[in-house]
């Protein structure tokens, strides 16, 4: 039976083959990627969801590593399915959008390797294989970030510094734990940590947290994310911000719930029976979502707005999970799925829009609803989900997170989260207004065609998924409860049927909500279109304009300026002016300064000084070690 270890190799081999075979026959790249996508989806879905299976895979690595072991449990299958589906949708998007680009070959090489390494992360059962695939994800996604970047130098270097530094923080913690446990297997490591003294456990958990918070782009470690998400290859961005950030979520859950264990973290120090480390991270998550939401509203670039919105949404997941309550983790997982679906849908559509119009700023777009109706519908579904509006799944996941915060009495966290989720309506509206409504900023926008057909293969299922999860919020509950159980928590949902979602303090019936909405809308629609005379189609410029008549030149696409008024709100304005990046830039200057001073002093080019160094070292050794 093809175990997880083979599933990982399929995309990686496909990628490498695609690169070389593609040189001979170009369509081989799409063919191989498609083959690997189908194989991965088939195998991932065929694997039993919550039966714990483990494989050891001696990969001929030296004795010190032991054999790399892989396996599945409910949590891994949960994320594996997420990865497989995103891999499928993004592959189709890439088939359409990357067809005639010059980096056609390297794209498929690195895209498949990233997919393979994601599966590797999820299926690995020991620290070393987890780290191997984590690093492979980092460097392969680096090349996809700089592939089509406008200024690859700044984006690429910030991405590498943060992600590699995060990975190495995680690695130090792994070595710490390896020294105590003597082995890299998760279970042995878990038992070893239980016996470690408190200060060490705290040190290890902070280092692990840093590694995963960098990946989840939580404040103050988020600086790489906006640039990386905006400048990465258009069709890859969905995968990047939708699925790669979820690896941070998976890692966080894996290490904090099973290996380090919330219980003994609580033993060390806790505030109101939530571990202090978790409590601090929860506040970090909330602060991230507030800052990121306000920063998202004032953006003019479409992808940068979505990038900041990703950071904000993942901030919710961070807050929900890090409190260590069963319902919180369930809420985090639910929102992880919803966020992936929404971000895939939005980024794929935006990539299609950019591909067709060649423009990526709100001030250059506008009134595309007439030319690209399906994309409009896709973005409409997306923003309803993003804003967390009831008929679609976005509301269900946010509802669970709110309930978890209410149940664990973290009211202040909930109030802070409300600030950001209410402000989210602004950037959702700006997204759909800026691109599809209002007035066309340039005449050529009126000749644009709909997004390529392949994208519909990705968009339609995602839209349906949002609707279905909205209609049947309880559909995911059994799977989430199994995943939460795999982490050692008993699931906290009261209801088990598909239609309702109920937990701690209340519940709601998604099926009724969408039916009521549907019935009323149909009634109003019939009543309005049939019984009333047809409305007269007015010309675009025939609008109420305070007694003047606008001409073709008057700039009417006012909506792209949404968010300008935020600067005037005292606290929000202050947060928008102050950037955390200045701190990092100063730090980078400091390091560069030391580096250049160091090299100029020590290697100053004079042969005689070099001789002097040798003699002085000799004298120093004799004097100091002489006694």
């Amino acid at each position, binding site marked *: 039976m093809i175990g997880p270890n083979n599933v990982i190799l399929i995309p990686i081999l496909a990628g490498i083959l695609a690169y070389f075979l593609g040189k001979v026959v170009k369509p081989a790249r799409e063919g191989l990627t498609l083959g690997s996508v189908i194989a991965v989806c088939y195998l991932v879905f065929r694997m039993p969801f919550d039966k714990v299976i483990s494989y050891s895979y001696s990969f001929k690595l030296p004795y010190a590593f032991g054999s790399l072991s892989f396996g599945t449990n409910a949590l891994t299958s949960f994320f594996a399915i997420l990865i497989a589906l995103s891999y499928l949708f993004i592959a189709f998007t890439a088939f359409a959008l990357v067809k005639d680009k010059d980096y056609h070959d390297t794209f498929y090489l690195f895209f498949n390797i990233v997919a393979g390494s994601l599966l590797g992360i999820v299926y690995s059962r020991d620290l070393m294989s987890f780290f191997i695939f984590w690093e492979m994800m980092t460097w392969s996604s680096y090349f996809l970030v700089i592939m089509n970047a406008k200024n690859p130098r700044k984006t690429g270097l910030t991405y590498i510094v943060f992600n590699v530094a995060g990975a190495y923080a995680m690695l130090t913690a792994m070595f710490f734990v390896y020294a105590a446990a003597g082995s890299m297997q998760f279970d042995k490591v878990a038992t070893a940590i239980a016996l470690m003294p408190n200060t060490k456990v705290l040190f290890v958990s902070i280092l692990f947290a840093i590694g995963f918070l960098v990946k989840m782009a939580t404040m103050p470690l988020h600086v790489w994310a906006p640039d990386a998400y905006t400048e990465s290859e258009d069709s890859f961005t969905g995968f990047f911000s939708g699925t790669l950030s979820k690896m941070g979520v998976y890692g966080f859950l894996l290490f904090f719930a099973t290996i380090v264990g919330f219980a003994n973290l609580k033993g060390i120090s806790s505030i109101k029976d939530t571990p202090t480390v978790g409590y601090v991270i929860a506040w970090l998550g909330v602060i991230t979502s507030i800052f990121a939401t306000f920063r998202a509203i004032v953006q003019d670039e479409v992808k940068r707005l979505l990038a900041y919105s990703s950071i904000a949404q993942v901030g919710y997941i961070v807050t929900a999970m890090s409190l260590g309550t069963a319902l919180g983790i369930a809420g985090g997982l639910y929102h992880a799925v919803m966020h992936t679906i929404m971000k895939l849908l939005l980024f794929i559509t935006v990539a299609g829009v950019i591909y067709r119009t060649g423009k990526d700023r709100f001030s250059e777009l506008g009134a595309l609803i007439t030319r690209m109706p399906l994309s409009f519908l896709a973005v409409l579904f997306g923003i309803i989900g993003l804003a967390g509006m009831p008929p679609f799944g976005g509301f269900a996941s946010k509802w669970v997170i709110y309930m978890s915060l209410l149940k664990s009495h973290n009211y202040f966290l909930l109030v802070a989260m409300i600030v950001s989720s209410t402000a989210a309506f602004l950037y959702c509206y700006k997204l759909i207004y800026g691109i599809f409504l209002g007035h066309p900023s340039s005449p050529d926008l009126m000749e644009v065609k709909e997004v390529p057909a392949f994208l519909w293969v990705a968009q339609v299922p995602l839209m349906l998924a949002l609707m279905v999860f909205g209609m049947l919020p309880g559909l995911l509950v059994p799977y989430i409860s199994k995943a939460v159980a795999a982490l050692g928590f008993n699931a906290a949902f009261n209801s088990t049927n598909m239609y309702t979602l109920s937990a701690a303090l209340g519940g709601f019936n998604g099926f009724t909500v969408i039916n009521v909405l549907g019935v009323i809308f149909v009634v109003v629609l019939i009543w309005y279109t049939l019984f009333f005379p047809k409305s007269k189609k007015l010309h675009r410029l025939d609008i109420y304009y305070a007694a003047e008549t606008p001409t073709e030149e008057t700039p009417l696409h006012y909506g792209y300026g949404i968010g300008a008024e935020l600067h005037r709100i005292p606290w929000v304005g202050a947060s928008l002016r102050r950037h955390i990046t200045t701190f990092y830039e100063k730090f980078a200057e400091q390091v560069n300064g030391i580096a*250049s001073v160091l*090299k*100029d002093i020590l*290697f*100053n*080019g*004079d*042969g*005689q000084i070099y*001789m*002097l160094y040798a*003699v002085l070292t000799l004298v120093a050794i004799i004097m100091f070690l002489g006694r």
Partner: protein
Amino acid sequence: MRELLTNTHYIVLTGVLILMVIGFFGALTKKNLIKILISLGIVDTGVNLFFIVIGYLNGKTAPIFSKPGLTPQQMVDPVPQALVLTAIVIGVAVLALGLSIVIRVYEHYGTLNVSKIKKMRG
């Protein structure tokens, strides 16, 4: 263990020390490349002299069967002297190579001042 250091040993050892000090002082302070190479040569001779002193036994003669009837017991320890031969050859080779490179450096830089020859630094 040959601990019997006679006063001749001490005289020659001080000589070695003086040579070494002069050599190192010259190499580390003089700016002219050729002077540096010469002082390195001096250090080399100092070391070779030190080797000879190690093998010297008071009142013994050179380890060559020049006269019939010389027994090895009357000779000084031959091994360091063999080593010194190789060391001298190496010293010469290094010095010759050094001077040829110094000529080429002079062609390029027009100066022999070692603190001026630092286009490659940092």
